[in-house]
């Protein structure tokens, strides 16, 4: 056994001291979006009566599903029974929605037992059913959110976060409040685990507000605890204490005491970290008692660990070691390796403080063994993942072989095409050659004049380019200046106006309150409008976040106007472009969209920003009435001229295609420069 710790390991020990798992969490609680409110949920027993006499129809499926979600909280096995019945019956009736909901409940059951693969299997089925009925709305989002929760459970936070983020919008839009709130809560936890505490806090606050709206006491309590944990990690102990105490307040209203343990433990660790050990011990003992009462072993281990740390901190090493040993026995029984590791770590410290170096060394050795085994486990997990990846690549190769046949056929066709092309090119070559000869003769004839003309042209171009740069820069600066003026002047005056108006709140006669309220609302509307104008004028988002974010923002602002629905697609642009190109492309896009909103009379448009190795492309298509190239000279003409100026300035090409049947397509391509 190496007595000298590896330096990096030493550093790691330091880190761990700061971040051991003192908090108790309830991620699994929020794994799922349950409770489909299809029927007004009544008493489960009366529902069971209903079931007895129910016809074998979709209503019965729905009743079964309501029963699952109610039973899910009390009796898992009974919930399993009902979900299976619901699945069978809806399969028989070919009732896809019922099948999807039943699958979600089955997944919920298995994930609660930690059988993630089984749960995932049901969810994959649910996805398949969604595809069959072309479900793209809230139900699909719910399935996806469940899958995201499973990824979280399996520790794959990246995948989980991506899936959550891509689905919460639908939940929000379709007003699925409980599911939306739970998803936000889980996202907050993921951010918490990846140490993005500010992001974590935003999501926690929003989910807390939603839970308060829903009067979901359990979730209010847990989200207060989460906020406590976030503040605790930010070392904002006074805020952490406030939140844990609020959590405690809510938890006291609940039958299930596990929430009480979380809050009590939280308060305990805050006091412990601020070295108020006697306060800490009071709360931790309460938490421990609750943990023992409800028989949650992990909670007991965590509380014992935290208590031990307090005793160790207040120089009672004997008591501390006693508690650590007690915790160790339980941790070994439930196989919680991380807890064992932490316990040995703090035991080492306690023995050291006591001056018992022999015991300290023994604990340290144990610590190293457990730590190495955790490290190995994580490694082997990585290896497993790698081999899984290898397998899937092998499969991809097999598919490629299967494809070969198809490709060979394709090649034959290409060969034939090539032969035809060859023939064509001989004919083409002859013609071009002749024309070329003639051209050379003419050119020779006019050589002198041509040279002069070229010189003149080059000069003109240079001048024109210079003018364009000047104009564009002036325009840009002017717009930014106007935006700033609007913000500093008009914006502030508006806010001040509103504040002054509010002074009269209590003095408005009753019959005038509507008018008064309207005036206040009107100021809000103007403020929002003003903010939109400011954002359109300034290119701040573009400057800081680049084209994609700037276009996303622009499109969402335009969509909010409600005139036309624009979908924004982007692909292949994974780096920032040169500043001049970015700002011009953005203004071109703005101009295109403005024209589209003003003149197209269409209902839908698609904006695309695409990039590959050679060029960047901006495309706007609409389903409007199209335009007549001759007529636009007076109406939209200024816009088009502006666009053309900008396009040629950044050495790109623009193409407009329009007819009354298919609307307008605008296409701007900018070659990439090294």
């Amino acid at each position, binding site marked *: 056994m190496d007595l000298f710790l590896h330096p990096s390991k030493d550093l790691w020990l330091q880190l761990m001291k700061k971040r051991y798992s003192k908090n108790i969490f309830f991620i699994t609680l929020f794994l799922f979006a349950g409770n489909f409110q299809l029927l007004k949920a009544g008493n489960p027993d009366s529902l069971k009566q209903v079931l007895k006499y129910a016809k074998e129809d979709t209503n019965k499926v729905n009743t079964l599903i309501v029963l699952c979600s109610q039973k899910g909280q009390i009796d898992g096995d009974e919930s399993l029974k009902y979900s299976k019945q619901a699945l069978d019956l809806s399969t028989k009736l070919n009732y896809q929605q019922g099948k999807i909901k039943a699958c979600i409940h089955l997944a919920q059951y298995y994930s609660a037992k930690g059988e993630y693969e089984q749960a995932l299997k049901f969810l994959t089925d649910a996805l398949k059913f969604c595809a069959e009925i*072309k479900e793209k709305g809230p139900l699909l989002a719910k399935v*996806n959110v469940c899958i995201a929760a499973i990824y979280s459970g399996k520790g794959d936070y990246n995948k989980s976060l991506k899936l959550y*983020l*891509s*689905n*919460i*919008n639908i939940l*929000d839009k379709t007003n699925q409040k409980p599911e939306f709130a739970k998803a*936000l809560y889980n996202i907050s936890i993921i951010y918490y685990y990846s140490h993005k505490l*500010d*992001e974590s806090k*935003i*999501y926690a*606050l*929003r989910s807390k507000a939603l839970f308060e709206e829903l009067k979901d006491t359990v979730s209010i309590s847990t989200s207060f605890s989460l*906020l406590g944990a976030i503040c605790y990690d930010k070392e904002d102990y*006074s*805020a952490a*204490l*406030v*939140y844990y105490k*609020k959590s405690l307040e809510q938890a006291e209203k609940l039958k299930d005491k596990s929430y009480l343990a979380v809050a009590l433990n939280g308060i305990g660790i805050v006091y412990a970290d601020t070295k108020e050990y006697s306060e800490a011990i009071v709360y931790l003992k309460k938490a421990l008692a609750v943990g023992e009462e409800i028989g949650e072993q992990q909670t007991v281990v965590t509380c014992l660990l935290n208590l031990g740390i307090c005793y160790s901190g207040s120089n009672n090493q004997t008591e501390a070691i006693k508690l650590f040993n007690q915790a160790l026995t339980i941790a070994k029984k439930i196989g919680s390796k991380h807890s064992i590791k932490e316990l040995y770590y703090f035991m080492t410290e306690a023995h050291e403080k006591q001056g018992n170096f022999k015991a300290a060394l023994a604990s340290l050795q144990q610590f190293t063994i457990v730590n190495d085994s955790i490290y190995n486990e994580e490694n082997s997990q990585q290896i497993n993942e790698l081999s899984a990846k290898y397998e899937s690549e092998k499969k991809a190769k097999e598919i490629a072989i299967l*494809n070969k046949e*198809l*490709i060979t*056929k*394709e090649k034959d066709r290409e060969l034939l095409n090539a032969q035809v092309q060859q023939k064509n090119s001989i004919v083409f070559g002859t013609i071009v050659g002749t024309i070329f000869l003639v051209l050379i003769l003419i050119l020779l004839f006019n050589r002198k004049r041509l040279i002069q003309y070229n010189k003149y042209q080059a000069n003109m171009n240079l001048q024109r380019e210079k003018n364009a740069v000047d104009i564009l820069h002036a325009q840009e600066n002017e717009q930014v200046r106007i935006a700033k003026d609007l*913000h*500093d002047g008009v914006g*502030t*005056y*508006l*806010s*001040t106006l509103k*504040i002054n108006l*509010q*002074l009269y*709140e209590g003095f408005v006669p009753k019959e005038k309150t509507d008018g008064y309220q309207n005036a*206040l609302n009107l100021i809000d509307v103007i*403020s929002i409008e003003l*903010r939109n104008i400011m*954002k359109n004028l300034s290119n*701040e*988002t573009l400057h*800081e*976040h680049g084209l994609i974010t700037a276009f996303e923002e622009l499109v969402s602002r335009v969509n909010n106007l409600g005139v036309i629905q624009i*979908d924004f*697609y982007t*692909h292949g642009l994974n780096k920032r472009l040169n500043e001049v190109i970015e700002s011009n492309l953005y203004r071109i896009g703005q101009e295109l969209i403005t024209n589209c909103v003003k003149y197209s009379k269409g209902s839908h448009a*698609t904006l695309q920003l*695409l990039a*590959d190795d050679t060029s960047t*492309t901006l*495309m706007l*298509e609409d389903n409007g009435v199209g335009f007549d190239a001759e007529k636009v000279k007076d109406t939209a003409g200024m816009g088009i001229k502006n666009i053309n100026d900008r396009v040629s300035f950044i050495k790109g090409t623009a193409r407009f*295609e329009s*007819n009354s*049947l298919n609307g307008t*397509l605008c*296409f701007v391509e900018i070659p990439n420069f090294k």
Partner: protein
Amino acid sequence: MNAPIKILIADDHQMFIDGIKALLNEITHIQIVGQAINGKEVIEKLNNYSPDIVLMDIGMAELNGIETTEWITKNYPKIKVIALTMYDDHNRIMKMLKAGVKGYILKNTSKNELIEAINAVSSGETYLTKQVTASIIKESSKPNHNPISLLTKREIQIIKLVVKSMTSKEIADELGLSELTVTTHRKNAMQKLELKNVAALVKFSIDNNLSEL
């Protein structure tokens, strides 16, 4: 009764400061102890007024709201800062949060919200106005990431016809588009899906039930 909550207002518009003062004048448990027109003045006045809460504008001369908040968090961790600003963009909100603000409300707030925010922050909680949390959450969430969601309606329409082994010219005639446009869409779609040839496109459309969309 507890001691009143002491507030310092920082804003570069005197008119706005006066408005807030008048608004909070009748609230007995809130007391405005001072004002500042830029960040530098805030820092100078903190010692004299020892406020509990600073209402902080972002766009100020000398030292802006973000820098000033950073300074307060570092030097006077007990003083809490609430951003009171016109800005509601992701970038500034995150910067202010990182700087250590405990509240974020917009200038077109209502009297009730202003008081609610002051109460919450003074009790140790964080108060972010709904507009702020909602906009951040909305911004960070993206649409679904399946490959089909990369394709526009037009591209799907064209792929379906390509799969029926129609040429670009034929497709152009069928849809009333120019051949060049059809080739462009086709090229874009293949690029988005990272497919090299028509065979792969056919396989993709079968795998993803494209014909049924």
